């Protein structure tokens, strides 16, 4: 669709249909449900980062008044193997061991037992009464040490995958991946300038404000209902069924409102425990994580070490690039090294490149998806290397990127040729943006970086019910994490030709609507939106048929315009148009209720590119870095709800800046995280940030009826390098390792001679 189309609803910013409940405290989030006869579940967690479990004695806890159930790893069935699927990656049996340790604990905070009791305080006392005997083992905490052949092993059965032959000895390297094209030696030989460097990016947490929470209620036949905050209740149902070897039909999952996820609520932690506890206690069991548990025992994103080598001619043309990328998986395999490898060079035309990536086990929590998983780490390194090249060659950083930018027809490093993409349009918009053409403030530096994410499609379902007065109920299966109900209603309004206010969207539970994958991968507005549009088109076809029957004409003699059936030109002009309300009101006489539906596995998610630039100032006495201005330009394909697209871009910018400047998991030598709270793991607060200026570019995605590309993940990618490049230009000192917290910046300035 071209931009010339005059949309009535698409591209505006109406108030979200779930808004009033969210500003008045009515909306129910994960921890907001309380059921009659409910008791509380809590988890006992390992005090060691690496240890063998020699024995667990729960007898004292079981005997305590008010304790209804106690479970350990021995209460779980032997789980099946196989991929979990979705964005997180990993294996079902690993998932089972991650939510409740069996013979070994692999990180500080790993669950070893759980109780259900009449109150939270009784549950806590019961946890204290459980005795666990451990044989403490040396923890493996550092990526490079973990990769050594003589490193202590987390899993003696871990043999590196994807090698030509199965290795003779196990190691902590769970898998490797190689990607390449051309001949890098030849490419580097053509270079006039080569830059290379090693960059370290710390483990970081999604930092959603709502801790994980659920309520499970099982009956005597095993039929179980679970209310929880989740990015995908269908996938939570599948995971719970696999881990507990239950019939999926016995599990009903209801998604509550969700207080942030960013990828971190795509895998189960509490839900299978709550189901088991409820089954044993025969009462509803509510479980809520503390913030400390969220940090220690959910899935942060990988720390990584990225080595980049980039060669270019004097005119700035890239001749070759290579990358060596090592990602922390945490306790079980499944680091996002694949996407890291596939994104690192994706924005650029490169005849010769090679990438080698590693998925490495360490005694830290098993990582989960976090907004564009894998890309911020590898692309941070590449975008810093480009900045160094820009300085060395004396070429403007936007011009240098424009010279090498991928466009429609460029073969992506991960295989296919790009369809129309917006990278060049973003770069050209950046070059003339008033925030870029104005002078850099005194004492500050201006950093530029590009971001990229593939975006995904996957499966979605939607139903559209036309109520008897012509209003519309839309049922979908994608939890609304940032305003997607509004986008769905807008696409339905545009398609049907009825006012936005006449449409309500609801998120059906696993028994009320068709399967939908997680709200993740930047897929919801694209894929679920496509299902909504198709379901509305189904309604329109039915309405045309009903009108045709009413008028006694053929269905192809009826058109749909502005929410009404009208006779096609040349058909009986006397016929009065029939509105959706009129057709719905007459439905009993024309065939019954109007129900449209669609289910699909969406193909053709358009890749999302962004350009960010930022002005940062560095206090040379303290090393503190201040963000003076931040501008994010991104191709959204077509922005359905403009304000929520801007919000995704602004929120991703804040998260990327937090990771660049402050956020990191800090461990002691025993593998105990030292900053497991919001006081010491400091995410950006309002006074840390300026307004974040956004510009939405719209290069339509030909695979979506309105041209939508996903927008949720790309925004976190570029801020890391934009910030680091700004600091490098402000100080003249290139700091390779994140975060750029005051002690590191100060030490680097002092090492460089103040």
């Amino acid at each position, binding site marked *: 669709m071209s931009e010339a189309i005059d949309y009535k609803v698409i591209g505006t*910013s109406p*108030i*979200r249909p*779930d*808004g009033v409940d*969210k*500003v*008045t*405290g*009515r*909306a*129910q*989030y994960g*921890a*907001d449900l*309380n059921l009659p006869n409910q008791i509380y579940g809590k988890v006992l967690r390992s005090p060691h980062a690496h240890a063998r479990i020699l024995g667990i004695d729960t007898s004292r806890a079981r005997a305590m008044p008010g304790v209804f159930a106690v479970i350990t790893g021995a209460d779980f069935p032997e789980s099946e193997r196989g991929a979990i699927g979705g964005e997180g990656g990993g294996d079902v049996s690993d998932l089972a061991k991650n939510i409740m340790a069996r013979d070994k604990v692999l990180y500080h905070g790993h669950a070893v037992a759980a109780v259900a009791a009449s*109150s*939270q*305080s009784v549950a806590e006392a019961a946890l204290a009464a459980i005795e666990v005997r451990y044989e403490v083992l040396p923890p493996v905490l550092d990526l490079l040490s973990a990769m050594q052949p003589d490193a202590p092993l987390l899993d003696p059965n871990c043999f590196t995958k994807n090698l030509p032959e199965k290795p003779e000895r196990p190691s902590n390297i769970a898998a490797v991946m190689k990607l390449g094209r051309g001949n890098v030696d030849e490419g580097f030989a053509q270079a006039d300038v080569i830059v290379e460097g090693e960059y370290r990016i710390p483990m970081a947490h*999604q930092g*959603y*404000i*709502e*801790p994980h929470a659920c309520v499970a209620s099982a009956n005597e036949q095993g039929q179980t209902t679970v209310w929880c905050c989740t990015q995908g209740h269908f996938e939570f149902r599948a995971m719970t069924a696999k881990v507990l070897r239950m019939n999926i039909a016995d599990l009903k999952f209801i998604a509550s*409102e*969700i*207080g*942030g*996820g*960013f990828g971190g609520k795509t895998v189960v932690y509490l839900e299978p425990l709550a189901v088991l506890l409820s089954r044993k206690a025969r009462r509803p069991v509510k479980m*809520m994580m*503390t*913030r400390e548990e969220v940090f220690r025992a959910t899935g942060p994103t990988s720390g990584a070490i990225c080595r980049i080598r980039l060669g270019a001619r004097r005119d700035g043309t890239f001749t070759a690039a290579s990358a060596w990328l090592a990602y922390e998986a945490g306790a079980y395999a499944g680091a996002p090294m694949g996407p890291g490898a596939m994104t690192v060079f994706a924005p650029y035309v490169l005849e010769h490149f090679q990438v080698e990536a590693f998925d490495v086990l360490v005694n830290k929590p098993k990582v989960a998806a976090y907004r564009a998983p894998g890309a911020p780490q590898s692309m941070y390194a590449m975008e810093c290397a480009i900045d160094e090249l820009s300085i060395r060659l004396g070429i403007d950083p936007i011009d240098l990127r424009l010279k090498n930018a991928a466009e429609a027809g460029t073969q992506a490093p991960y295989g296919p040729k790009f369809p129309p993409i917006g990278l060049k349009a973003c770069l050209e918009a950046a070059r003339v943006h008033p925030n870029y053409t104005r002078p850099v403030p005194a004492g500050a530096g201006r950093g530029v970086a590009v971001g990229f994410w593939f975006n995904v499609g996957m499966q979605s379902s939607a139903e559209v019910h036309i109520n008897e007065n012509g209003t519309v109920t839309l049922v979908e299966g994608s939890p609304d*994490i*940032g*305003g997607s109900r509004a986008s769905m209603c807008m696409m339905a309004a545009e398609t049907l030709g009825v006012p936005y206010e006449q449409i309500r969207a609801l998120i059906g539970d696993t028994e009320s609507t068709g399967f939908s994958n997680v709200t993740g991968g930047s897929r919801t507005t694209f894929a679920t939106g496509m299902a909504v549009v198709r379901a509305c088109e189904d309604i329109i076809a039915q309405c045309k048929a009903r009108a045709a029957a009413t008028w006694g004409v053929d269905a192809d003699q009826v058109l749909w315009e502005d929410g009404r059936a009208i006779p096609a030109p040349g058909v009986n002009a006397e016929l009065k148009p029939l509105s959706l309300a009129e057709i719905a009101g007459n439905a009993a006489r024309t065939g019954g209720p109007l129900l449209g539906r669609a289910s699909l596995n969406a193909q053709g998610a358009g890749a999302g590119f962004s350009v960010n630039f930022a002005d940062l100032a560095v206090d040379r006495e303290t090393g503190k870095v201040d963000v003076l201005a931040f501008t994010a330009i991104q191709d959204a394909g077509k922005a359905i*709800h403009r*304000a*929520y697209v*801007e*919000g*995704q871009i*602004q*929120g*991703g*910018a*804040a*998260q990327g800046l937090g990771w660049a400047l402050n956020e990191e998991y800090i461990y002691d030598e025993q593998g105990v995280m030292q900053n497991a*709270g*919001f*006081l010491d793991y400091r*995410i*950006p*607060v*309002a*006074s*840390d*940030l300026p*307004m*974040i200026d956004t510009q939405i570019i719209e290069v339509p995605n030909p695979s979506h009826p309105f041209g939508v590309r996903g927008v949720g993940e790309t925004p976190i990618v570029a801020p890391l390098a934009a910030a680091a490049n700004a600091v490098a230009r402000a100080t003249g000192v290139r700091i390779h390792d994140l975060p750029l917290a005051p002690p590191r910046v100060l030490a680097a300035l002092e090492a460089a001679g103040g």
Partner: protein
Amino acid sequence: MNKIQIETAINGEVVEFLCEPQQSLLEVLRETLGRTGTKEGCATGDCGACSVLMDGRLVCACLVLAAETGGHAITTIEGIATDAGLHPIQQKFLEHAALQCGICTPGLIVATKALLEKHPEPDETTIRYWLAGNLCRCTGYDKIIRAVQDAARELAHPA
């Protein structure tokens, strides 16, 4: 465990409850009294999701013992809207798309009410520092600040 009997006023309504001595106001509001509009993000006073007013003063409900609230007046998010409808702060949060997931929103709205009662026409820096105790992970704060600025304008100069 011996429980303590407390009588307090929540959003103008006299409320009696029994609590354990270590229970926070937040836990009692949510788990005992069913006032779940006040959210828990950390329970350590670091995130502001549980912001409430105690005798008009902005506090984190997780840092107040329930047993301390006897005889005091508590205002929670459920007490911000009136019979006349949404409070202008609530309306401006909606109009400016100042919430995405919405979990921090109740705390931010309560904190904004306290801010605007003390500083009816705050500049951007005042807003940013006053709200620095309320973490939001979704928005980058941009639209929140604009909503607060707009609410301040409307409250100071009603149309």
